[in-house]
């Protein structure tokens, strides 16, 4: 009984209960917004087809019961009608194809950063906005955590360059085109923060790319979308969007902290080695 009461109250009281009932999440980045628009176009066409076909079915079932319609009309078909609805279905799908290809560049291609975004220099790795200026972040997926390495060297020589990194929560500047380079080191994972765009499989052995450009500061929730083992449900990903100034402060702080801790580990290692406690 209490369980029922809880159930009923959560149905009525839940404030965000009916968020995203008919459309996907969006609002964080232009690619997510474009997918949202494309989805809406599909939805409108789908709604028309749904109402027409379900309507015909319901009318047929109510109007032609044996009681109301005792004599069945004996017909074997109607070629014109059949060709008509085959063509009709094809036309609707043709419209969807055209719309998809119109919207595709806005979803796939990264745009330039805004003027008030992070100040960046051009780089050559793909994919790239028209002016080549982007923030590179490499994502390393592994059971069951996301590791983010910041900076243009993240792909090739992050150890040599000692690029700063963080786990689980990614911090990015607003109005800045962020290009993600995604790899996995064990099983297949899937990078997905719904409000910032579509998902990308992180398949071991492959390097894949995606991008987003946060439209405003905020905090976004996402999580691994491909079954990756026991703790799949716990493999969450957060993105914290801050102003470019705050981003640079955070990055400096992160870098300093990593350096300090590396130095401490180094010192500890030296002490342990000199005391011969690390074995051979």
């Amino acid at each position, binding site marked *: 009984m209490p369980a029922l009461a809880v159930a009923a109250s959560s149905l009525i009281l839940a404030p965000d*209960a009916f968020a995203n009932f008919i459309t996907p999440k969006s609002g964080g980045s232009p690619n997510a917004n474009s997918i949202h628009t494309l989805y809406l176009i599909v939805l409108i066409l789908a709604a028309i087809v749904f109402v027409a076909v379900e309507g015909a079915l319901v009318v047929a079932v109510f109007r032609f019961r044996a009681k109301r319609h005792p004599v069945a009309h004996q017909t074997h078909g109607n070629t014109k009608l059949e060709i008509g609805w085959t063509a009709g279905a094809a036309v609707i799908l043709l419209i969807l194809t055209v719309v998809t290809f119109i919207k595709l560049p806005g979803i796939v291609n990264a745009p330039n950063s805004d003027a008030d975004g992070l100040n960046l220099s051009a780089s050559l790795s793909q994919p790239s906005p028209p002016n080549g200026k982007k923030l590179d972040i490499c994502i390393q997926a592994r059971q069951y955590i996301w590791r983010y390495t910041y900076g243009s060297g993240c792909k090739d020589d992050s150890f040599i360059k000692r690029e700063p990194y963080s786990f689980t929560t990614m911090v990015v500047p607003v109005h800045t085109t962020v290009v993600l380079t995604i790899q996995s080191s064990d099983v297949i994972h899937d990078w997905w923060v719904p409000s910032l765009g579509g998902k990308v499989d992180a398949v071991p052995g492959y390097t894949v790319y995606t991008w987003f450009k946060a439209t405003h500061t905020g905090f976004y929730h996402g999580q691994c979308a491909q079954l990756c083992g026991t703790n799949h449900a716990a493999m969450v990903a957060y993105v914290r969007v801050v102003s470019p100034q705050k981003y640079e402060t955070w990055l400096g702080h992160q870098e300093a902290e990593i350096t300090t801790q590396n130095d401490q580990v180094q010192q500890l290692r030296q002490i342990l080695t000199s005391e011969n406690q690390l074995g051979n």
Partner: protein
Amino acid sequence: MATITSDPVVRPVPQILAHEVIAPRKTKRWVDWVLTTDHKKIGIMYLVLTGVFFCMGGVEALMMRTQLSVPNNTLLTSEHYNQLLTMHGTTMIFLFVVPVWAGFGNYFLPLMIGARDMAFPRLNALSFWMLAFGGIVFYATLFWHPPDAGWWSYPPLSESLYSPSGGQDAWIFLIHLTGISSLLGAINFYVTIVNMRAPGMSWNRLPLFIWSLLVYAILLIIALPVVAAAVTMLLADRHFGTHFFDPTDHGSPVLWQHLFWFFGHPEVYIMILPGFGVVSEVIPVFSRKPIFGYKAIAAATAVIAFLATLVWAHHLFASPLPIVVLSFFMLSSFLIGVPTGVKIFNWIATLWRGSLVMTTALWFTIGFIAIFIIGGITGIFLAVFPVDWQLNDTYFVVAHFHYVLMGGAVFTVFAGLYYWYPKITGRLLNERLGKASFWVMFFGFNATFFVQHALGLSGMPRRIYTYQPGLGWSTYNLISTIGSYILGVGVLLTIINIYRSLTKGQIAGPDPWKGNTLEWFTPSPPPVNNFDEVPRVRSVEPMRDIRRQVERQTGVIQKGGGSEQFARSS
């Protein structure tokens, strides 16, 4: 006697047209069942066995739904949850929906084409026992460590490094055993349909259910060797040191995805096409008019089968593939919507201006169409690959394929059950209980799965064993769980109905529904030899022709078996 059997069409219809061949029983009854090669007994064993697996898969589903009913639930551990989702998917696909059509096919294929048995009766028995052993091998893992890499078993997760337990190997053997079972069955169906049709039954007089079984058989023959090869490669990776799918040694996990879904997508149509066939049989019978556009429906079945082999990579839209490949698979997936739409339009046109006798079988058929329209439309959303980047691997996909497979295929299984149960057992299922079961299932189904679209749109990925509160998922999940129990009650009502009607059901007679096809020409249940004499077939609806000819010659309107008694009007 000879004069009568040479011209069977002039006799009143509900008359015994075949005689039981009675051999003195030498063995125990259960030995009879184990050793049988009779297509009807094998068909019944298929239906019972797959029915048991359906119930087990259903219980697994209810356990998962219960775990997800509230956030941070601790009813199940994540290990158990992953095992359950793997068992549920594998059971429903390999041990229920595919073989249940083999069950209906075995029983009705020879009867509907006027044959006395399948072409290869012993091969038929082998098919069944392979399925049974596959199921046993798979479910035996319950006592050790069930597989937990999902029913797609994507490597590297399914490789021995990440899934060391024997459960994964049991899964591989299940695919092999049920695969061989289906392959042998498919060859048998194909040969039987091609060679053993009644005199006069040309291809354009073949019942549409048989058309769908023919295409089902061809698709199985095309798709199954591919998955058999794939799981053999996985087995070799796991135990014999190969690296087909191991990225650390130049293997590719994406290769598995291609191979698996090259099988996996035709599999979807393998599961739904015979259901379409049932719908194409049930609707004309209870609309009391011929099927609208017979040729279009038969052709659409063949076109779907052809396109079904060209759409597999729409399961890989989030995998590393170039845009041009994604575009091709979007277009091919759109294309397959056209023949599917044609079928739906033709069914509605058959209902249109008919004289509908609202039996439970027809209700399940109409419920199927209503649900399948939604599943078909959400399929178009998923085919648009940029939209799929948001929806793939979320509950939206879970909702979509349950709309086509649970509300789709399973509802047609139930329609077939209510339609053919009287032929199999000689007794009718209770219509009142049947309709109650339908409405409870229909409501429960939509309550369970409709909100799952919203869950996916709100960002909930599939295959997570729990979630945090405050993400906007809790309410939808609770509704879905409540719906799943209602759905379970609906299924339970039919199970009770099946059990009760075995002994208490009304006697059916040979043709309770005024059927169109030849299975209604023989007594219920049919004798071992099916027919003494097979009538010459002159149209798609041989039984209707016979009924008309009797009316012409005797001047008496045939009451058929009296299916009108089930109409609400009388």
